[in-house]
C-alpha cells in the first residue's frame, strides 16, 4: 500500500508540472495564431480606432510574458479571471459547462462501458461463430462512420420519423432529471456507438490472450462452464489492458465530443472552448485546456493504479 501512496504522490507532482507546461504551450499557441482578441471580436466591422480602444481596455498592449505571469499569479490564487470577450466570470460559466460535460460523459459511460465489456465477453464465448462476427461487424461499422453522420442518421429516424426524444439537447438547471435524460438520449446513443468498438475489441483480445494459458485449460478440465471461466478466471487477469482502454475512452467522452455537442447543440465544454479559441480569448482557453489536461492525467493515473492493484507482480517489484 505504501508503494501505491508513493506512486500517487509522484504522479500528482509530475501531473502538476505537466499542467504548467501545458499552460505555457496553450499561451504560446494562442499568441502565434493570426489576429488577436480585439480583431476577432470586431471581425469584418473593425475600424482602427475601435481596435485600438479595445486593445487598450483589454490590456493587450502588454508584452506576452507580462500577461502570462499575471495570469499565472491569478490562477495560483484560485482566480481564473474574467473572459476577455464578454467580461463574464470564467469560473462561473465554466463550472456550468463542466457539469454538463461530465453529465453527458457519465451517462454515456454508464451505458457504453458495461455494454462493451459484456459484448467483448460474449464475443469470446462464441469466438469465430456468428455472434462474434456480428458484434465485431456492427461495432466496427459504427466506429468507422463519422460521429456527426451517426448523429444525423439518429436525428432523422428517432426524432423526426418516430417522434421520440429530442434533437436539441439543450439542458438547464430547472429541468428535472427525467427531462434531462430525455434531452440527452440521442447524443448518448451516438457516443455509445462511437466508443463501443474500441473497448469491446480490447476486451475480446485481452481475454483471448489469457485464454491460451495453462490454468484456463485446467479450469476447463475441471468441467467449469465457459462463461464462468471467462468471468472468474480470465477477466481478472485481463483487466489491466481493458482498464487502460476504458480510461482512454472516458477521457475522450470528456474532452473529445465537440462534434457531437455541435450537432445536438449540447452546452458542454467543447463548444465553449472552440468559441473562445476562435476569439483568442486566452484566459478561457487556458482554463479549459488545463481542465482537459487534468482529466487526461487523472484518468491515466487511475488506470495505472488499477493495473498495479490487479497484478501482484507489479505490486511487489524486485
Amino acid at each position, binding site marked *: 500500500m505504501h508503494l501505491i501512496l508513493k506512486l500517487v504522490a509522484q504522479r500528482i507532482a509530475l501531473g502538476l508540472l505537466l499542467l504548467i507546461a501545458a499552460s505555457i504551450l496553450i499561451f504560446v499557441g494562442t499568441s502565434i*495564431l*493570426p*489576429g488577436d482578441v480585439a*480583431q*476577432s*471580436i*470586431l*471581425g*469584418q*466591422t*473593425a*475600424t*482602427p*480606432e*475601435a481596435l485600438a*480602444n*479595445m486593445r*487598450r*481596455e483589454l490590456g493587450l498592449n502588454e508584452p506576452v510574458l507580462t500577461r502570462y505571469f499575471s495570469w499565472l499569479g491569478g490562477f495560483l490564487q484560485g482566480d481564473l479571471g474574467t*473572459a476577455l*470577450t*464578454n*467580461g*463574464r466570470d470564467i469560473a462561473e*460559466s465554466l463550472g*456550468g*459547462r463542466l457539469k454538463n460535460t461530465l453529465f453527458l460523459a457519465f451517462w454515456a459511460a454508464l451505458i457504453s462501458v458495461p455494454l462493451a465489456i459484456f459484448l467483448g465477453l460474449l464475443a469470446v464465448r462464441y469466438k469465430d461463430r456468428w455472434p462474434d462476427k456480428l458484434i465485431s461487424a456492427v461495432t466496427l461499422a459504427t466506429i468507422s462512420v463519422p460521429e456527426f453522420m451517426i448523429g*444525423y442518421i439518429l*436525428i*432523422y429516424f428517432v*426524432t*423526426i420519423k418516430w*417522434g421520440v426524444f*429530442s*434533437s*436539441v439537447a*439543450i439542458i*438547464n438547471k430547472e429541468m428535472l432529471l427525467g427531462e434531462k435524460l430525455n434531452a440527452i438520449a440521442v447524443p448518448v446513443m451516438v457516443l455509445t456507438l462511437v466508443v463501443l468498438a474500441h473497448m469491446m475489441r480490447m476486451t475480446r483480445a485481452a481475454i483471448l490472450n489469457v485464454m491460451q494459458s495453462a490454468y484456463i485449460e485446467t479450469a476447463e478440465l475441471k468441467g467449469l462452464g465457459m462463461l464462468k471461466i471467462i468471468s472468474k478466471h480470465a477477466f481478472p487477469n485481463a483487466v489491466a489492458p481493458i482498464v487502460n482502454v476504458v480510461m482512454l475512452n472516458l477521457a475522450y467522452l470528456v474532452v473529445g465530443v465537440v462534434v457531437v455537442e*455541435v*450537432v*445536438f*447543440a449540447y*452546452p458542454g465544454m467543447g*463548444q*465553449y472552448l472552440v*468559441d*473562445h479559441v*476562435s*476569439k483568442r*480569448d486566452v484566459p478561457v482557453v487556458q482554463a479549459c485546456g488545463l481542465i482537459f489536461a487534468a482529466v487526461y492525467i487523472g484518468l491515466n493515473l487511475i488506470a495505472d493504479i488499477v493495473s498495479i492493484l490487479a497484478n501482484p507482480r507489479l505490486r511487489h517489484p524486485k
Partner: protein
Amino acid sequence: MQDELNHLSTRVTKGLLTRRQFFGRAAALGVTVAAANSMLASAAKAAGPVKGGTMKLGASGGESTDTQDPTLTTSEVPLYNLRHWGETLVDVTETGDLDMRMAENVESSADAKKWIFKIRKDINFSNGKTMTPEDVLMTMQRHSSEDSQSGALGIMRGIENMSVDGENFVVELAIGNADLPYLMADYHLMIQPGGGFDDPGAGIGTGPYTIEFDEPGVRHGFKRRDDYWDSENRGHAEFSEQLVLNDATARTAALQSGQVNMINRVDPKVADLLGRSPNLTVKSVTGRGHYVFVMHTDTAPFDNNDLRLALKYAVNREEMVKKVLRGYGTIGNDMPINGSYPLFDDTIPQRAFSLEKAAEHYKKSGHDGSPIILRTADGAFPGAVDAAALFQQSAQAAGIPLEIKREPNDGYWSEVWNVQPFCMSYWSGRPVQDQMYSTAYLSTADWNETRFKVSEFDEMVLAARAEVDEAKRKEIYSKMGRMVRDDGGLILPMFNDFVDAVDNNVGGYFDDPNGALMNNKAPIKCWINS
C-alpha cells in the same frame, strides 16, 4: 358552405375550436387540408394578433463569447437579443419608410444639416425609469466618443454636435445628409438608460421583453413586459426563447420535429426539400446582401481597368446564382446597389457573361501572363470556394490565368480581407444607397476594400447626401452606380436571398428585405396561432 367554413375558422381564431377539429369539419364539408389551412391563415390575419404562448427561435450566429452590449453586436443571435429588449429612435419598414419608435417625429433644416428628433414621452425602460431625451443623447455619445468600441462608430462620424433641446434630441452635421434618420435605425443604437455607460450589457431598454435567462452560446429567454408602450404591434407571445443552433442540420431538424417555431439561415441546398414538409414554409426574401470579389484598384495588376473589365466579363453570373445559391438569389451588376434600395435606377444595363469581351480586354490590358491570385476561404461567404472554382473555370476559358489560393477561415478578416489585393468578401447591405457608398467606396472609408479613390466620386457622394430633391438624387446615384460598375474594383456576381423557415402555427409573418426573419424582428412581431 362558405358561411359555415368562415364561421368555423373564426371560432378557431377565438380559441373555441382546435385546429384539428376544424380540419375534421372542413374535410366533412369536402375541403382539402391545404385549402383549409390557407383559410385558417387568412382568418387569423383578419382576427389580428393572438396573445400568449411561447415563441421559439432556432438561430445560427451565436457563441459562448456573446454579450448583450449593443456596441459589440456583430452576429445574428446577439442581434435577436437586442431586438427583444431594446429599441432605436426609428426603424426602417419593409417598404423603406421610417417607423417612428423612440422618436415621435423627425424634422430637418432645408440643407439637411440640422435634424430634430422629437422624443416620445411616458415611455419606461424595463427598470421602471422613464426614457428621456438625455438618455438618447448619452446613448449616442457612447457610440460616438473617442474611446468607443462601437460597430456604429463609422456612421456616427459625420456628426458635429448633438444636444438636447427640451423634448427634442438635436443632431448637427458638418455636411448635410438627407438620410440621417435611416442611420439612426442602426441596430447598435439601442436607447439605454443613461446611455448604458454604467452597465452596457444589462439588457435594460424600452423593448417589449425583458431577459429571463441569458446563457451565451446556448439559449436566451425573454418574458413579455406588461407595461410595453406598443403592445398592439409587438410582443405578442408571453415568452420568447432563442436556442443557439449553429449546425444547419440541427436547425432544420429542430424545426421539423416541432422544437422551434422558426429558424434562420436555411441552407439553400436543402431549402427545396425542407419546403416540402407540410407543417412549415420556407421564406426567401431578396435583400441587399451580396457576395463579392474585390480587387485593389491601386495595386498591380489590378490598377489596369482593362484587366478589371476582363475579369468582370469572365464571371458567369447566372451559373453562380444557380449553383452556389441554388437559385435563392439574383445576379449582380458589379455595383453594390439593387432594386431593394430606394432611388435605384433600373435602366443601368446589366453586364452579361462574355468570353469574347473578357479575352479582348485581357489582351488590351497587356498583362504578362503571370498567374492572377484570388484568395478565398470558406468563411468569406457560404459557398465561396465553389464560387471561386466556377470563376477560375470561366476565366480560363477566356484565357485569363486565374489561380485560387485557399486561406484559413481563422484570421481571414484580419489577415486577408482588406489586406491582399484580390480576395472574396460579403456585405449585408445598408438601408440606403448613401450609407453603402460611404461605408465602402468613399476614398476615406475604413472599409474601402477596393481602394476606390476617385475625387469626382467622393464629390458626388457628398452632393447626393445633401440633395433634398429626390429626382436629382436619383440621377447622381445612377451616375455613381455606373462609375463603380465600369471603373471600380468590385466584381459583384450575385445578391443572396435571406432564406428562413417558419412553421405554420406562426401568424403575422411578412417579407422584409432589410434583414433575415423580418429584419430580425419576427420573434417580437409574430404570434403563435394555436
